């Protein structure tokens, strides 16, 4: 298997985020991790990125154990996190090593900026772009280092509905073009179904995998497709109990502390 999580657990001093996570992901697949807030899906993704320590278990990419961040894993965050002192082009070439010549860097930047349709803005500064455009630059930047896997942590969560749909379509095109393995974290059921080959559903308190299934619906997927609606219902039911659990806990806390 290409990306392998084996009995992975994350604990902090006072609580357990999740434990016993076992996932195998094949190459060139688009896999979403879906779950309510607090299930640890973002933490799990950060562990794959190497930004977060693994308490227990192992993570392997292409057979190699993941211990640190590395350029074989590109990450796109909810915030674009572009460097404001660099132009769009220089942001995209930032991860490129010194062994690329200047011309090669220009070429790579041009290539990926074209892919996200921002060629016209290569000399602009990030703050001159809209949120959606900034996020596209962030995607181009992650792709520029030609990672084996693209990690996306609710990348469209901060965008408005309209922009989100446009970026979904763009991401699908990029996925088809580059055939990257993508691991995508989201709390939106629709988003997960629309984009993924496979959806892993996580539950909470403590975090665990409660379902894992393929999405065999031809792309592009329309929202009113009966298969899509069916799938949505199925996942919704799965998550309902989880969300109730969180709500109940919060309500209990309120009544205990305010009542």
């Amino acid at each position: 298997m290409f990306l392998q999580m084996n009995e992975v657990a994350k604990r902090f001093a006072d609580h357990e985020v999740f434990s016993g996570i076992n996932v195998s992901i094949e190459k060139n697949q688009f896999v979403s991790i879906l779950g309510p807030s607090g299930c640890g899906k973002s933490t799990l993704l950060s562990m794959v990125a190497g930004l977060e320590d693994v308490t227990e278990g192992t993570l392997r990419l292409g057979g190699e154990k993941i211990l640190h961040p590395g350029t074989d894993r590109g990450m796109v965050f909810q915030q674009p996190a572009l460097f404001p002192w660099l132009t769009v082009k220089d942001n995209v070439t930032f991860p490129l090593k010194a062994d690329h010549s200047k011309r090669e860097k220009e070429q790579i930047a041009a290539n990926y900026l074209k892919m996200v349709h921002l060629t016209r803005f290569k000399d602009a500064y990030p703050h001159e772009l809209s949120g959606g455009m900034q996020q596209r630059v962030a995607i181009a930047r992650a792709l520029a280092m030609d990672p084996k896997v693209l990690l996306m942590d609710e990348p469209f969560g901060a965008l408005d509905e309209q922009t989100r749909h446009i970026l979904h379509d763009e991401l699908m095109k990029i996925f088809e073009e580059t055939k990257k393995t993508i691991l995508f974290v989201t709390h939106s059921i629709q988003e997960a179904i629309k984009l993924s080959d496979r959806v892993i559903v996580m539950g909470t308190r403590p975090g665990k995998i409660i379902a894992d299934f393929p999405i065999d619906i031809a792309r592009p997927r329309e929202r009113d497709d009966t298969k899509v609606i069916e799938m949505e219902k199925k996942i919704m039911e799965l998550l309902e109990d989880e969300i109730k659990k969180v709500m109940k806990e919060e309500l209990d806390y309120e009544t205990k502390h305010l009542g």
Partner: protein
Amino acid sequence: MKPSIWVKRIAFIIVLLAIWQGVYMSGYFPAIQFPPPTKVFQALVEGFADGTLVGALLASFKHLLIGLALAITLGTLIGVLLGKSRQADETAGMYLIAMQSIPSIVWVPLAIMLIGLNETAVIFVVVLGGTFVMALNVRTAIHSVPPEFIKAARTMGAKGLPLFFKVEVPASLPYYMSGIRLAWAFSWRALMAGELLSNGPGLGYSLRFAMDFAQMELVIGIIIIVGVIGSVVDQLVFSKLEKKVMRRWGLLK
């Protein structure tokens, strides 16, 4: 800026000068204590014409430039140390705030006793005046680097010194510029305190000299010069620089 703003500002000065002239003409204060605006202007013109004020200004700028350069360097080093090392911050961070709250003039007797009644003592006071505020701002600058920048850079393979110089340093530049502007303002105040008690040369020394010889018109004239330089340098150099960086960093529209 809109011309109407300048009209208001100039009108304000004219009114102020008129009140000043009025008080003088009322004869309430003896002329030696309260010279008219014209006499102050005359004293300034004479001071510049015979070169005494020019010499004093040049000497003051020399003290300031040396002192400020040292303060910025030292402040940056201390600030980076406290900003990067939690150990150092927990140990010494609190004392830095204590040092920064000591008015510069307090250091003057110490400087004179330690170094002597000379220009080095003045520069020493300027350095103390600017270093602590610079260090505090550099520390804040480093602490305020958005964590997502660091995370993003790490996923792109940056770590150690390259991470510091390619991400943390540029990311903290806006606060760094504020630090330099404040260091200048504090150093300028410290310079005047130091020079007032020194035996020259310098603008502060000229001020005390004028007082000793009861030249009120020169006392007021020098106070005006100090105020004008303070605001002009801030507006034309440091504020402009700070705003330019903030705009480029997208922190200011």
